[in-house]
């Protein structure tokens, strides 16, 4: 089996029109029976979800996505998954203790992020939303840098070029256009073809309703830009379910824009890796854009300020827990005898160390200097800002000798 309709697992239905959300047949193919009379006869109703590792940890094969992984490679993926979940857990705790203003949890989306993140080459460029902590990890960005944003120390502040990982983008969908423009730059640099470069851009199911995302699809399509649109459909845009964004499965939108789209089991790190690799390679070679819909689930709240119990049933979460992205890799490693208890203990210990380091570094993070407000607003001198900085510095100096605020 592949994806299970959570609504068939004993839960009462919170939203009446969710029947196409996912259903499954004996072959593991997911069927979208159609929301209100919408798809009957007018559009293919079978929705294939590409899956290479079942929730039970069994390998599945797919003719279009052959994937050979050594035991060590699988163990590396497992390690990534565990470590990024630990970063997430630690960050949530830090927020609860008042050390972070907010945190956007990736819980449940580790496989989508690690799978796609590990599919990238060192020269590829990634454009994240604000939840791509797993991709950031794959790009070698220190998690502490992510915390700066959520602690209010900076607006991001890492060097996107150095990590081939753009700044987090809060405004929904804006980055899809940046990624597409960047990909057009790759074309103009003649960096498409053999040893080419490509761009991946992350966004969510909610973002697919944004004008910018649709404009990015058009731009990428008509210019054949080397960009992969990686949509993590985690089923919820804060409180709004997928059917408030779309009447059709999201990946099917690609055909209307004129490029391929496919749905991958977003909780399957193998499938996410294989599908992203292939799409990135196609982009690098000049075959243009691809839309990948990683079908996953936001197991946590939208952010630490959110309370999902107001809009969704606990049973839905319980159903998705059975498809946990980490447990299935662990099951696979155990099943194939690729890893023993000491390996898992070692990864857990490493995760604990990472958690401690994240915590310590967060607590030690200094507040920026007040005059940093004026820095980097402009690349070239601004008479206006120079005057304001001078005035504010003088104002601050007027308190010299008094107790600090």
């Amino acid at each position, binding site marked *: 089996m592949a994806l299970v309709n959570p609504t068939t697992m004993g839960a009462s239905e919170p939203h009446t029109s969710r029947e196409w959300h996912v259903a499954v047949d004996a072959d593991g193919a997911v069927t979208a029976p159609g929301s209100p009379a919408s798809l009957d006869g007018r559009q293919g109703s079978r929705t294939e979800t590409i899956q290479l590792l079942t929730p039970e940890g069994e390998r599945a094969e797919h003719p279009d996505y052959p994937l050979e992984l050594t035991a060590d490679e699988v163990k590396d993926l497992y390690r990534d998954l565990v470590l990024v979940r630990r970063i997430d857990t630690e960050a949530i705790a830090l927020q609860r203790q008042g050390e972070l203003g907010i945190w956007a949890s990736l819980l449940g989306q580790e496989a989508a992020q690690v799978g796609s993140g590990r599919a990238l080459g060192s020269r590829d460029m990634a454009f994240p939303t604000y939840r791509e902590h797993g991709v950031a990890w794959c790009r070698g960005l220190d998690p502490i840098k992510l915390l700066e944003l959520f602690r209010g120390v900076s607006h991001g502040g890492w060097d996107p070029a150095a990590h081939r990982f753009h700044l987090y983008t809060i405004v929904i969908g*804006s980055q899809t*256009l*940046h990624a*597409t423009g960047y990909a057009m730059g790759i074309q*103009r640099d003649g960096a498409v073809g053999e040893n080419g470069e490509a761009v991946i851009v992350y966004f969510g199911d909610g973002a697919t309703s944004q*004008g910018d995302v649709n404009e990015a699809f058009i731009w990428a399509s008509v210019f054949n830009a080397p960009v992969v649109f990686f949509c993590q459909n985690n089923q919820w845009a804060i409180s709004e379910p997928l059917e408030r964004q779309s009447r059709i499965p999201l990946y099917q939108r690609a055909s209307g824009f004129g490029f391929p789209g496919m749905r991958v089991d977003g909780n399957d790190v193998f499938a996410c890796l294989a599908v992203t690799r292939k799409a990135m390679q196609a982009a690098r070679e000049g075959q243009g854009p691809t839309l990948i819909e990683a079908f996953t689930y936001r197991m946590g709240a939208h952010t630490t300020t959110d309370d999902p119990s107001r809009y969704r049933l606990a049973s839905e979460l319980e159903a998705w827990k059975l498809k946990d992205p980490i447990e299935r890799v662990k099951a696979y490693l155990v099943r194939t005898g690729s890893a023993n208890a000491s390996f898992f203990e070692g990864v857990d210990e490493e995760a604990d160390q990472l958690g401690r380091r994240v915590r310590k570094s967060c607590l030690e993070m200094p507040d920026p200097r007040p005059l940093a407000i004026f*820095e*980097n607003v402009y*690349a070239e001198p601004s*008479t206006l800002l120079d005057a304001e900085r001078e005035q504010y510095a003088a104002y601050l100096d007027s308190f010299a000798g008094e107790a600090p605020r």
Partner: protein
Amino acid sequence: MTIMTLSKALNEGLRKALENDPKVLVMGEDVGKLGGVFRVTDRLQKDFGETRVIDTPLAESGIIGTAIGLALRGYRPVCEIQFDGFVYPAFDQIVSQLAKLRMRSRGFVTVPVTIRIPCGGGIGAVEHHSESPEALFAHTAGLRVVACANSADAYAMIQQSIACDDPVIFFEPKRRYWDKSEVDTAAELAAALPMGRARTVLEGTDVTVLCYGPMVRTCVESAVAARAEGRSVEVIDLRSLSPLDLGAICSSVRRTGRCVVVHEAPVTGGLGAEIAARVTEECFYHLESPVLRVGGFSTPYPPSRLEEDYLPDLDRVLDAVDRTFAC
């Protein structure tokens, strides 16, 4: 020196920028084969190719959003927004992304995007084709906002904007596109007045009139008329709306003791409000009378049969000048 229209001067400036820097791109709706609806980009695609002069899909947010991506890749896109009233779909990308990326990245990212916007009224156009949204951008930190008023400035300032590492909103006075004046295309760009500086167009001793873009010609004509009545009006073309050249503004007002700000945009919350406040703060004890503003009314831009009532003209500028002497 060559006499050319303002539109041709922009075309020559863009051509020069494309020649001098292979990273410069021109992009927008109809900028390629057609050469732009005002022909500002005429023949550029023919000479520099479709890779560098790009006819884009018809979506303004897409134009600016992809230009940001191109800038992140090391390019210097010059975007055309076809008309002032069409910039709003791109407003989010300009304000939330373009203006802030450098600060958000702590200086790691530079986005040298120039956005050309034909602005202002006076051409008898239908709605959304005659607006003056400069205050919205001047209010936005991280952007530089400039306006050209003659051919020489059009030629130099468009090149300066493109060379600038900050994003620049470049306003072009569309009703002055066909005005002709001298341009020295042989002169070094480095010799041109920096784009952040204001220029005194006419020297005077009695009152300072501050203006920019399409209103410069109107104000010069007003000053000439005032001279016949014995009033010496100093006309300053601000050129840079953000940051303002407060040094030039204040030194003039301190000499004349009177100040009138003129723009087509509604006076409420307009550039004139900011300038009046600054002048009051900096020059209060030199002022003989309150700073006055002449501008559009606090209404949407009217149907074109009424635009002559809406737009400041010679008489309304003179009326304000007279009122500064009434105190």
